[in-house]
């Protein structure tokens, strides 16, 4: 049975066009792009074509794109490069709601002696700009603030932050993994120095990412070895996945406007119906400033893992910020940073859509969800069912 897949902020299905594009590079063209023979060396050109497509999606120059293995590597590389390039500066700024790729790297830096400021957000997940202005100082090596949050979809004011940092000549990195392909990104106008994107969030396979590094930005490699990526990221290129990534970005660019409208309509329908049909439910995050594909809804007095397992019976895929699904005993750091009450955090469910979701799939969720919530509430000592 085909899953009803509403977990696209976790990962996305590979687009059929993308898969077609990459397969020959497993079966036939298995060469190494660094080789002197034509068989391998010709792949170099394919990689450059892919680089140009990725650059085009975000308005960059091709030589400003470095291929990596994933979004996490892009984020780690950006932060590491900044602190290596400015060794005299001992302060780093991030937010409390960053992806673990940034959050835990910053904690690592803090253990190594850097001063780290984690900026707070308000109850709608909006960044505390006063705290940001206060935190920035001449000792700041880099500021890393995500473009949009993976759990709530809330979009941060990246242009505003970037302009302030540019005036003060401070390096600015943004994790745009959840944004690329969903809303327009144009680094020509966006005052960022580095920007991370990931293949598998936009219908390319897992295992490939990219870091945009603005021309003229000091850079220090994270993975050290051969001359690949002009010495900025060593290791033999993941040829097939890079080619796939290029194709996926080309498709994303083509579909960008139409897709955002479609996703927003479908998301709003799903969200609106669930709020109407399930009492004691609330949206987490700033509804005025969200990614078009994401909704994070708390169903109070019930626990998220239990909801997900009930949905799983219908082959419906979503995710939750509850403690039981996090692998730790604590619920979502994002919802906690927002000060969402525990009655609501444990019952938070995220639905994240892609272009492959249909209205019928949304209808199925709308059909089964109210009954699931009602049943689980009759089980719960807090439920009013």
């Amino acid at each position, binding site marked *: 049975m085909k899953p009803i897949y509403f977990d696209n902020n976790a990962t996305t299905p590979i687009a059929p066009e993308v898969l077609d594009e990459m397969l020959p590079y497993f079966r036939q063209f298995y060469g190494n792009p660094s080789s002197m023979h034509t068989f391998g060396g010709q792949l170099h050109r394919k990689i450059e074509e892919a680089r140009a497509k990725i650059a085009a999606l975000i308005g960059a120059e091709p030589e400003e794109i470095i291929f990596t293995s994933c979004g996490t590597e892009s984020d780690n590389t950006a932060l590491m490069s900044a602190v290596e390039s400015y060794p005299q500066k001992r302060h780093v700024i991030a937010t409390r709601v960053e992806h673990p790729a940034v959050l835990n790297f910053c904690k690592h830096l803090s253990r190594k002696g850097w001063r780290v400021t984690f900026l707070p957000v308000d109850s709608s997940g909006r960044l505390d700009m006063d705290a940001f202005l206060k935190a920035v100082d001449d000792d700041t090596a880099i500021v890393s603030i995500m473009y949009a949050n993976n759990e709530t979809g809330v979009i941060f004011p990246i242009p505003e932050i970037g302009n302030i940092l540019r005036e003060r000549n401070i390096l600015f990195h943004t994790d745009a993994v959840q944004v690329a392909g969903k809303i327009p990104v144009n680094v020509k106008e966006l005052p960022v120095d580095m920007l991370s994107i990931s293949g598998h969030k936009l219908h390319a396979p897992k295992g490939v990412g990219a870091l945009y590094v603005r021309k003229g930005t000091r850079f220090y490699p994270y993975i050290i070895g051969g001359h690949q990526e002009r010495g900025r990221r060593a290791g033999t290129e993941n040829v097939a996945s890079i080619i796939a990534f290029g194709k996926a970005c080309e498709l994303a660019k083509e579909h960008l406007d139409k897709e955002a409208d479609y996703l927003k309509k479908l998301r709003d329908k799903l969200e609106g119906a669930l709020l109407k049909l399930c009492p004691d439910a609330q949206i987490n995050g700033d509804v005025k400033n969200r990614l078009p594909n994401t909704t994070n809804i708390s169903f109070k007095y019930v*626990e998220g893992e*239990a909801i997900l*397992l009930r949905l799983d019976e219908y082959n419906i895929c979503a995710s939750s910020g509850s403690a039981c699904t996090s*692998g*730790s*005993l604590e619920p979502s750091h994002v919802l906690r940073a927002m000060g969402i009450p*525990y009655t609501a955090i444990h019952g938070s469910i995220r639905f994240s859509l892609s272009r492959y979701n249909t209205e019928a799939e949304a209808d199925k969720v709308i059909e089964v969800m109210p009954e699931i919530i009602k049943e689980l509430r*009759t089980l*719960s000592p*807090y439920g009013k069912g």
Partner: protein
Amino acid sequence: MWEYTKKLKDIFLHPKNVGEIENPDAVGEVGSIICGDALRLTLKIDKETNRIIDAKFQTFGCASAIASSSALTEIIKGKTLDEALEVTNQDIAEYLGGLPKEKMHCSVMGREAMEAAIADYKGEITPPEEKEKLVCQCFEVTEEKIRRVAIENHLTTVEEITNYTKAGGGCGSCIPRIEEILKDIWHIKMPEMPAVKKKLTNLQKIALIQDIIEKEIRPRLQADGGDIELIDIDGNTVVIALRAMCVECPMGGVTVNNIQEKLKELVDENIIVETG
């Protein structure tokens, strides 16, 4: 994703004995919504035979918490109170065909609810846990519970204690205390500490405090994203600064207290730790 057994999933999807007995003879409530799971157990008890005639539950929690609650009610129905008190968390886990190790605390919660209910029936008033007796403040776990669960389930590591009781799974500041409890239970040899009760010179005392902070305290805080900096030592006053995740940790006060206890124990009982 957790690897639940088919049996557990079936019980989760079709739990038995859901709800609340009207005019129950006994009520047992454990957990809280803050911790992420809570169980309310109600029992009907035959006063002649002390036998549990009926048991119902309401549970807020994940699939394994719901399944554990259902299993508990099935196991204890028909048992006398004495028989029921012999039911262990292992029995509940076995009934479910096993639990993922990270979820063992769900079975412990089931057993606790039953004990609370029977205590309620017998009119034993269990006072609310006093704050100072708690080892883990985040999940409100007492030393007594840690000791009991550790012995009953032969747990020897902090990770196992966390899996079974949640203690240590929040801010992590109680991990050194849990280690001490485990050492005490299993008589694990304590690492050799320098003989300290002799009168120390000021220089020796400073060196010892630095050594303990570096080797004993810092690595534990760092393991949880926290850190500490020694600012000054003035007589018996040790001035420290909490760094990194400790700064934002609501348990910061507890951490400072734990550090003071450690230094009192190992250096001088007059040590006072202050944050600078």
